[in-house]
């Protein structure tokens, strides 16, 4: 057996079918690429997940570090709550489908993020509210072309579908073999200038999955700025129902 095949077969059953599709020669290429992107974009979600993360943000104007707890269910439900620092403890974000709400404990109010503010920074980081909503739908909104395949990686170019409501002109994924984890994802604006990249690192096997535990977002137009999201703990297939992702849960401290 081909060594690559053997290694992939050792992976999770969930990835098995995907891997088979990917490595079976002569298979419909576009479909494979879509599955691959879908797999990468949902690596932190699973059916359901529960994680603790640390986010470090460095910008020209501030540096901050947040500890957060996050839950997700499928690709459409997501809840994250700040644990530290004390000043921001309890600030929480809920995403259900394409909508985002923030809970602000200081004023004890839930604010829905209006469409005009979706491009705004999330929690003072380089991640936008749009990222929370749209990243998980890349496989639906884009078409895919394999730019390059080498023994180390795949390079996949994603171009938006004609009618897709997306913010990027192009996304290029570098997906590392053999674990099929992302290496670098580069985002291009409508003028096809690279404006942002996300670097993945610290690949570990946790909760039965092999994942990069660190994600670094770098805006390319602002050298020196970055947001680092470090997963400290992540477990999958936790018992969560859709009812958990409610405004009421959002307001619990």
């Amino acid at each position, binding site marked *: 057996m081909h060594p690559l095949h053997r290694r992939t077969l050792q992976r999770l059953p969930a990835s098995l079918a995907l891997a088979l599709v990917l490595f079976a020669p002569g298979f419909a290429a576009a479909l494979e690429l879509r599955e691959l992107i879908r797999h990468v974009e949902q690596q932190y979600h699973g059916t359901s997940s529960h994680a603790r993360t640390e986010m470090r*943000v460095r*910008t*020209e*104007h*501030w540096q*901050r570090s947040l500890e957060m707890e996050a839950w997700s269910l499928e690709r459409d439900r997501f809840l994250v709550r700040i644990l530290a620092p004390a*000043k*921001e403890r309890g*600030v929480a974000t809920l995403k259900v489908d394409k909508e985002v709400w*923030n809970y*602000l404990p*200081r*004023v004890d*109010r839930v*604010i*829905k*993020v*209006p469409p*005009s*503010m979706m491009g*705004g*920074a999330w*929690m*003072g*980081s380089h991640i936008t509210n749009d990222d929370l909503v749209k990243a998980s739908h890349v496989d639906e909104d884009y078409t895919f072309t394999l730019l390059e395949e080498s023994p180390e990686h795949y390079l996949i170019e994603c171009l938006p579908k004609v009618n897709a409501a997306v913010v990027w002109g192009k996304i290029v994924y570098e997906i590392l073999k053999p674990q099929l984890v992302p290496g670098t994802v580069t985002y291009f604006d409508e003028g096809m200038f690279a404006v942002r990249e996300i670097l993945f690192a610290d690949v570990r096997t946790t909760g039965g999955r092999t994942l990069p535990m660190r994600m670094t977002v770098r805006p390319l137009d602002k050298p020196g700025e970055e947001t680092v999201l470090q997963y400290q703990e992540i477990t999958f297939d936790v018992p969560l129902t859709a009812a958990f992702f409610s405004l009421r849960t959002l307001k619990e401290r």
Partner: protein
Amino acid sequence: MLWRLALRNIWRNKRRTALTVSAMVVSSSLLILALGIFSGMLSDMLASATEQYFGHLVVSVTGYQDDRDFFDNFSPDPELLERIASNPGVRGISPRLRTFGLVSHGQSSNPGEILGVEPASERQVTRLQEKIVAGSYLADNPETGALIGRGLAERLGVNPGDELVFVTQAADGSIGNDLFTVRGIFSTGDSRHDNGLVLVGLSALQRLTVLPGRVHELAASLEDPMTAGATAEQLNRQLPEGLEATDWGQLLPEMQEAIAASDVSRLIIVSILYFATGLGILNTFFMSVMERTREFGILMALGMRPWRVRAMVLLETLAMGGVSLALGIALGLALSLYMATVGIDLSETITPITYAGGTIAPRLRVVMEAANFIVPSLLLLAVCLLAGFLPANRAAGLDPVAAIRED
């Protein structure tokens, strides 16, 4: 002798003279009124742009007025405030902090601009206190009071006494958020402010944005808005490094162009109206000269030189012009005074129009300006002389023998 002859001639045909004079009186007085209303509109526009929001000139970090970068803030030390206030003509200075964010009430939220002000200082720079349609202006110590534009208030469904939540990115990257209470609702007629502006206390906004003691601009009002350019220039020589003074002409270049264009438009209006009036006068004098052909012939046969005939006719027109002018100015002044103090309110029938960054209020009101009287007066005299010149030439060029024989 010429004067006596000229005056006698004027009084000979009283009806014709009365008609000509009244045409000149009506045209000049209406012109004075129209120009006054025109000035009134411009001054409303300028006031709406400067006295409702910008101020006449603004001191801020160099470049701030171009992109309103949140981080282009500074600490206004008392010495700086004093230095600006000591400039002649400065009426008031208001320190302001500005941020953009989400204004929310209940389920509805809207993007908005939040301006942190010290109400006592702000009142000397802008006149929002005169634009309150519900509730009241901010108290001198506003705490969590907020003043909100009418359009925004309607969108959010808030009334005085209701709470507002304001959410924005603070200077340390955290989510700045706080509760405010609507104190009053203002309506300026400028949709950009009515639909998106909220005023709160400066210290409350500094706390919310984690910018203690910082401001984005010092807005100043002047006794005479037209001196803003010169005052800004003078300030720019005194200000510390990194700060600049910007006058309303730079903040609102369209407005400055509109005002510069007004001098040209004034001249065009005057020319059109006086062209018509001038033709009327020309007609009258030609008629009166033709009727007197024999008379001129006799005068010249008696030895009057042609230039004296010409001067006599010109004196007639000048005398009528002078009388018309006196009456016209008097009438124009009376009409203008009435329109300056009472005016006509059109808000029932038309809505405010925003143009060149200012708002034209739905009212007719006169602002008195010397040029509005001087330009029509001088031009009326010029038109009179011009209209008298052709008939006078004709009279002077008559052959006495032929003229006497004419019927």
